[in-house]
């Protein structure tokens, strides 16, 4: 089992493709997406009840090495600054199979 970083990004669902583009740019080894989330933060309540998903959140989880996690965080900062969202990074062990 290898130590790694678990990066967790919460963002508006319409902006998902922008985050995935950032992941591509930094060369993330993979990702998992959780959709149809709701929540609340600085920009108020997101009830997720619009027809278009414009008030839905989604969560992208990326497991990667520390160095890439930092790079990813920097690349995400402007996206999050412009349109809100949250990014958490924590430690994990990755089961190599």
């Amino acid at each position, binding site marked *: 089992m290898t130590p790694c970083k678990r990066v967790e990004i919460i963002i*508006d669902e*319409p*902006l998902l*493709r*922008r985050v995935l583009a950032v992941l591509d740019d930094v060369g993330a080894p993979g990702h998992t997406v959780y959709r*149809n989330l709701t929540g609340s933060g600085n*920009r*108020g309540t997101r*009830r*997720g*009840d*619009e*027809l*278009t*998903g*414009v*008030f839905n959140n989604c969560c992208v989880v990326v497991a990667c090495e520390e160095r890439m996690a930092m790079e990813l965080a920097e690349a995400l900062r*402007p996206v999050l600054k*412009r*349109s*809100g969202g949250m990014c958490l990074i924590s430690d994990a062990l990755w089961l190599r199979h």
Partner: protein
Amino acid sequence: MELGLFLTNITAPPVLFFFLGAAAALVRSDLEIPQAIARFLSLYLLLAIGFKGGVALAESTWSLTMLASLIAAIVLASTIPILAFFLLRRRIGTADAAGIAATYGSVSAVTFITATAYLDLLQIPWSGHLVAALALMESPAIVIGILLFRLYGPRDTAVALQWRELLRDAFLNGSVFLILGSLLIGWISGPAGMDQLAPFTTHIFTGMLCLFLLDMGILAARRLEELRRSGAMLVGFALLFPMFCALLGTGVAWLLGLSEGDTLMLAILAASASYIAVPAALRLTLPEANPSIYVPMSLALTFPFNIVFGIPLYHQIIQWL
């Protein structure tokens, strides 16, 4: 306004179901329609109205008025956002003004559909090519809104405009695509196609519309409280600007010599504001605009106003002309 048209409108089942949904949300009932179902209903309505319009087109003869009204529709959809933007810009900032401009320049398919149900009830004919007008009016305002923000917004907007993405989101978004496509299919397959699809696209149509408006009532009423933060000025805008646009649309239709039904449809297209195509596109291309401002205005004020009062009111005005 005479009471007759108004009563005809608000006692029609679709409008009553809208009230029921709004009431459910206001008393905080847990009545709720799953998001997947709401999307299904909206896809159904777009498909059905597009197909119906296409079959009507196949049955009608081409005329210059048709072409003229399509062009007029595009002109309306490009002028209205510019008016809205300059009305609001100084008061609420460039980003939100651009967002509202895009919202009110574009159109609401469900408002259009509710108006067709109203006309069908009164047995007043309307033309299939207005469905094409509906589709053509959805996109221009999005592009114009973005451009206005780029021209008048803060200089330091670091991120370059991604034209390709913008145009795709504006002109190829799902609802435009589905209406235009279904219109084409209706046109190709004509009355023979209608024979096959009528039970699906026509017979159960009003019922599906009822269910969808029930959901719209819930969504609209839930957003009412967000309006408090927007202030009286925007509330006034959301109620008065559509009326002004309806007059604009009526005037244009009058110049073109459109029929009673078609005039009402053009007026309602001008008066309606988007809450589906526009927010989806703006979140990507204009994240600076706050969706908690433009969505509640369009969904919780303009939409109910139009389907409850607007349709019979504009109709009354047209009858007076």
